[in-house]
């Protein structure tokens, strides 16, 4: 069935394309380099963006708490390393426990968000911040005091606290040995690529199952869905669990590809950039699909790669390009919020 593309869905992506083209010429880099950079970032980011789709469909808005999923994966990497489990066994273990933990934590977040109906977004931001500091507390103060250190390479010379940078090469190699895919100089493990495709397909598939129908119904009208006999609380919890699990998986792919971990900063702001990417792809805080995620990640990262370079070339000041970049990321979220909430208000009247 052909669906007409609505005009307002196009405005944001088109603006991004125009700016990207402009920046491309200002930056003066080769197209190949750009493609390589964007492809790499796409692979690293796409699953996290997909994680945002479920809550939007269920009417819960942008789930900024996906950042918790990314932290869980990071924590699992450190813990597995601490037990000196390396290589393929280690990677598999990380994947397993991080997904399980994400499901558990997702359940708790889901319960919490059910208690603050109508304010899910702001609550998810605060929960994300809170989790970040608890995470820091564990790795800054917990390691070497409460948590026994088995792997001395992880901690600072004082014996307390994990180092800023942790090497994950031992896991990366496993994936790279299973076959890689090259774009320019960038290497991407085939296995990771398969995971991404499976994830994208899963989201698409899920939307065409009875569960997907329920999620959509809850998103469009919770009250009506409840009266039809859908357990809305349960659907909303499932949605957040899925979202958190996806985020954990996304971070696994990301770290696996990078091969190292900035313990305290790697996850910062990832949730906001993911939201910005989804919105750049033409999604709104009420409606989003796989298509928006794929297009959005490409568009946002193209601009992200280009704008500092364009800034340096055009104004002899790379930081201007960086300011522009953060303005785009945050501005698009603010814009989407205002436009959507205003429409909703008008709809009510």
């Amino acid at each position, binding site marked *: 069935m052909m669906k007409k593309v609505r005009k307002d869905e196009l405005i944001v992506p088109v603006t991004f394309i125009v700016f990207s083209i402009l920046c491309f010429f200002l930056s003066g880099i080769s197209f190949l380099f750009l493609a390589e950079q964007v492809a790499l970032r796409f692979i690293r980011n796409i699953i996290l963006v997909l994680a945002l789709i479920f809550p939007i469909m269920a009417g819960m808005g942008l789930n900024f708490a996906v950042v918790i999923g990314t932290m869980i994966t990071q924590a699992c990497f450190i813990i597995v390393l601490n037990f000196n489990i390396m290589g393929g066994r280690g990677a598999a273990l990380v994947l397993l426990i991080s997904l399980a933990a994400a499901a558990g934590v997702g359940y708790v977040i889901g319960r919490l968000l059910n208690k603050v109906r109508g304010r899910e977004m702001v609550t998810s931001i605060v929960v994300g911040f809170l989790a970040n500091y608890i995470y820091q507390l564990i790795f800054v103060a917990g390691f070497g005091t409460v948590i026994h250190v088995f792997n001395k390479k992880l901690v600072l010379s004082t014996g307390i606290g994990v180092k800023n940078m942790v090497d994950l090469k031992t896991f990366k190699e496993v994936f790279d040995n299973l076959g890689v895919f090259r774009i320019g100089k960038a290497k991407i493990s085939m296995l990771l690529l398969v995971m991404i495709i499976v994830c994208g397909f899963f989201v698409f598939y899920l939307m065409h199952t009875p569960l997907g*129908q329920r999620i959509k*119904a809850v998103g469009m009208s919770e009250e009506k869905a409840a*009266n*039809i006999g859908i357990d809305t609380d349960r659907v909303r919890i499932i949605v957040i669990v899925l979202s958190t699990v996806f985020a954990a998986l996304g971070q696994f792919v990301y770290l696996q590809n990078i091969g190292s971990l900035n313990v305290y900063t790697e996850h910062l702001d990832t949730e906001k950039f993911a939201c910005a990417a989804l919105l750049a792809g033409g999604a709104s805080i009420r409606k989003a699909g796989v298509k928006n995620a794929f297009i959005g990640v490409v568009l946002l990262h193209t601009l992200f790669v280009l704008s500092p370079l364009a800034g340096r070339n055009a104004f002899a000041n790379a930081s201007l390009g960086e300011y522009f970049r953060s303005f785009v990321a945050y501005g698009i979220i603010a814009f989407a919020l205002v436009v959507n909430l205003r429409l909703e208000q008008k709809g009510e*009247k």
Partner: protein
Amino acid sequence: MGEYVLEVRNLEKYYGQNKVLDKVNLSIKKGQIYGLIGANGSGKSTLMNILFGNSVISGTGGYSGDVIFEGERTRFRSTTEAIGRGIGMIYQEFMLIPEMTVAENIKLTRENTKSIFGKASGSMLSFVDKRKDNEDAARVLEQLGFQIDNSYLVKNISVNAKQFVEIAREVNKEDLKLLLLDEPTAVLGDEDAGKLIKVLKELAKKGTSVLFCSHRLHEICQVCDHVTVLRDGQVISDYTKDELDMHTLARDMIGYDVAAVKKEHLNREKKEILKFQDFSVYMPGEYLDGLNLDVYQGEILGLTSLSGHGKLAVGYGVMGQFPVRGELLHGSAAMEVKNVRRTIEQGIFLLPDDRKNMGLLLEHSVRDNIIFSGFYGRNLFQKKMGGIFPVKDKKEIERYVEEQIEKLEIKCESADQKVKELSGGNQQKVCIARAVLVAPKVLFVMEPTRGVDIGAKEKILDMLVQINREQGTTIVVASSELEELKRISDRIAVFCEGKLSQILPPDASDEEFAFAFTGEEEEDGQ
């Protein structure tokens, strides 16, 4: 007593202090169409909500008494549970998902699936078989005798089509044992209503029981095997099919108590102060459709209807609380209802029915509430401190507030007491004192005696008449208490289904009112 699908025994339900259901008993046989009629606030919807396990009920303290479904004592905690046991419900405001297609809505929660991964995949996670869903939906709609393209989004279809989609969804349930209908024909034309009734009869023949709520008496008489009339939460009467008679039903529903006192009505010259021309108000749950009405200067005009039929929408429309269409003339000038401040400056004021959420500042004192609209809206009681800063003229305020407290007999410890600590009646008096200060030319009062004790009721009605007589204020009272309207009004406008049904003099017979309420016309059509 295995023959009954549903028995309700001694059902009682309170909302806070209000008893909304009082020892209600009814029993519905298998394959029976059971009618339930009652005016607003009679407890119909509450009863339905209990039977359907709506969370509103458990959220407000549950109920007492027994619901016996298929011979088994049950207490549904959620609609999901009730649906699982084979109960369906058709709502007055449709429970359809607007962004989904007709077929998706009909099959929602009961989708056909095809399994790609073999039988192992759980039904929630198998692929939806759209084609089969579409076929199913088409078949049901055909059964109903209603034709519509399955692939349309529900938001784009007409109101009566929506009604049929909703019915189709329920009828499509294979194990449907009891179907609850809340005013299902309200939005249907006669022809479509006829179709629906045919469907209900067929359903009943197949063994599904139906509980049918309606205010359209002739339909009730036409289809129901048994009818119960509810008033003020009590079962007033019970009739079998042979005993049904529209007049008796209407009287039972509205009630007999005629007020003893009727006021002498002054003859005034008829000068219009407000003129509604094709005035529609899009108020959710109280839609008002194309009102043409003149309000005369100095009169007390009563507005009444069953709940949800438009009496409240008039005032709220004038005060710009909801989107409106059409014209409203004040004198001869058209009014811009969106500009509430301007409306108030022109001397139009409203006291809302929802006192707690709209009519009072609960956390503020009696004094603050009384003077609020006058002080802030009309700049009364102002003096300038140091020639610049406007501050309250405390002495004047004190004098006025004391006077009003005495005059209206507001029972409070002092003017400093917080309004939320007062009883409903005294709160309403505070509202009236607030309106008096503004000295409006036209005063809209919504449900002035709701939640008010008897003594205070009298005082409030007296005050309204007094304001009208002494200050010449035109008063428009929207109320569901017909007897009270009869006592104070010069004319009473009755609404039905969002349209002005009749304007009656207060001494018109109860029968005339009853028919005006239900929009039945055969009696006065001669």
